[in-house]
């Protein structure tokens, strides 16, 4: 009988050892490739941001009322931005064309990424951020006066820096809050009329849609108004 008890105890001990090994296998299985998966997704976001920024800036636009394909007077969008800025250090005349181009280029990933696209001027001028466009999805919708979570997100677009008091720190805090998955930056020189120039940056930041409402402090600081 003692021999039988010893055999059962050995078997149970073996079972415990196996359970520990199985736990390690489960942990390995759940973790394996996680970092690589996150890296490839971030790499895709980053590649997309770089491609999108180039595509937006170097696409053609028509300088007259005809479409791009019919017009005999076309130019790069970046030329239009520089020209607009040169007159009054702001992007206003060309704002709609630029916004349309951004929306078109970002359209294929509209369900995967929210984004912001802005121009930052380094020197102190009336508009430190002459153009600041943000697109995000909201998952909470109002239904009969009650706010409910919805699987179908609602895309909202904004022009920010409405108060003109936006700072680099506000943008950095917002980017940290949403967790950027891709970022592209391009330096640019804006010529001025009649002479001189301003150095600036054009930036595109992508992130996986994050559910927050318009009362979020980091979002309020961006000073966004519906586009």
């Amino acid at each position, binding site marked *: 009988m003692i021999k039988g008890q010893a055999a059962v105890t050995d*078997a149970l001990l073996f*079972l415990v050892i*196996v359970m520990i090994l199985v736990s390690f*296998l489960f942990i390995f299985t759940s973790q394996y490739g996680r970092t690589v998966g996150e890296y490839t997704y971030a790499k895709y976001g980053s590649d*997309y941001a770089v491609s999108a920024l*180039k595509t937006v800036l170097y696409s053609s636009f028509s300088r007259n009322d005809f479409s791009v394909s019919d017009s005999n007077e076309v130019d*790069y969008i970046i030329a239009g931005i520089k020209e607009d800025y040169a007159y009054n250090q702001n992007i206003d005349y060309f704002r709609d064309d630029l916004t349309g181009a951004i929306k078109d280029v970002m359209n294929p990933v509209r369900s995967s990424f929210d984004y912001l696209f802005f121009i930052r001027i380094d020197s102190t001028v009336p508009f430190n951020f002459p153009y600041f466009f943000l697109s995000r999805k909201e998952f909470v919708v109002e239904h009969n006066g009650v706010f409910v979570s919805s699987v179908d997100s609602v895309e909202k677009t904004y022009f920010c820096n409405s108060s003109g008091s936006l700072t680099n720190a506000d943008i950095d805090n917002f980017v940290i809050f949403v967790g950027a998955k891709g970022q592209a930056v391009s330096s640019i020189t804006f010529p001025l009329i009649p002479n001189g120039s301003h150095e600036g940056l054009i930036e595109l930041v992508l992130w996986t849609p994050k559910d927050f409402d318009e009362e979020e402090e980091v979002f309020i600081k961006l000073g966004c108004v519906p586009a």
Partner: protein
Amino acid sequence: MHFFLNKKGYIGPIGDDLPSLIPLMFALIIFFSSFYMTVNTYNDRTVDFENDISVVQISASLRGTGFVSSLQEFNNSCNALNIRQPFFSAGLVELDEEVDVFVLDSQYIRDEDEEELLSDEEELFKCTNSDESLTLEKALSLNSKIVARVYPVVLEKNSRAIPVKLVVVAWKE
């Protein structure tokens, strides 16, 4: 008779250890099941990584500087690729067109400016390493793995820079 007198309850060398065999078998079954599952997951994810990495390589080569100036340039980038597995199909598609991975050949942009006499297939901004295209049947098969990515690029067409999208689809059968 004396042999059995001092061994009450003894039912044989295996019979005596019978209760211990139950946790032993249980442990072995759990271990080998988990091991099998782990190996399967490892293999599946490795295939996913290979597909992901291939798509990154293909897209990087075809995008180049992000500005495609001609079909010739696109084909040169395509020919520089040396990928046998996974199978892939990549090409340029109009920006506003909804991509359907099963009819990509009909969605790829055709180069109408090409002066050389080319076949219908050669006129397309298309790059692939497979004679067969991806079908719904292949996609639904048990071991199939598909990765699809889209990137915006600029295509020079009639001296205009048109935004289009580069679609890359890779699959393993």
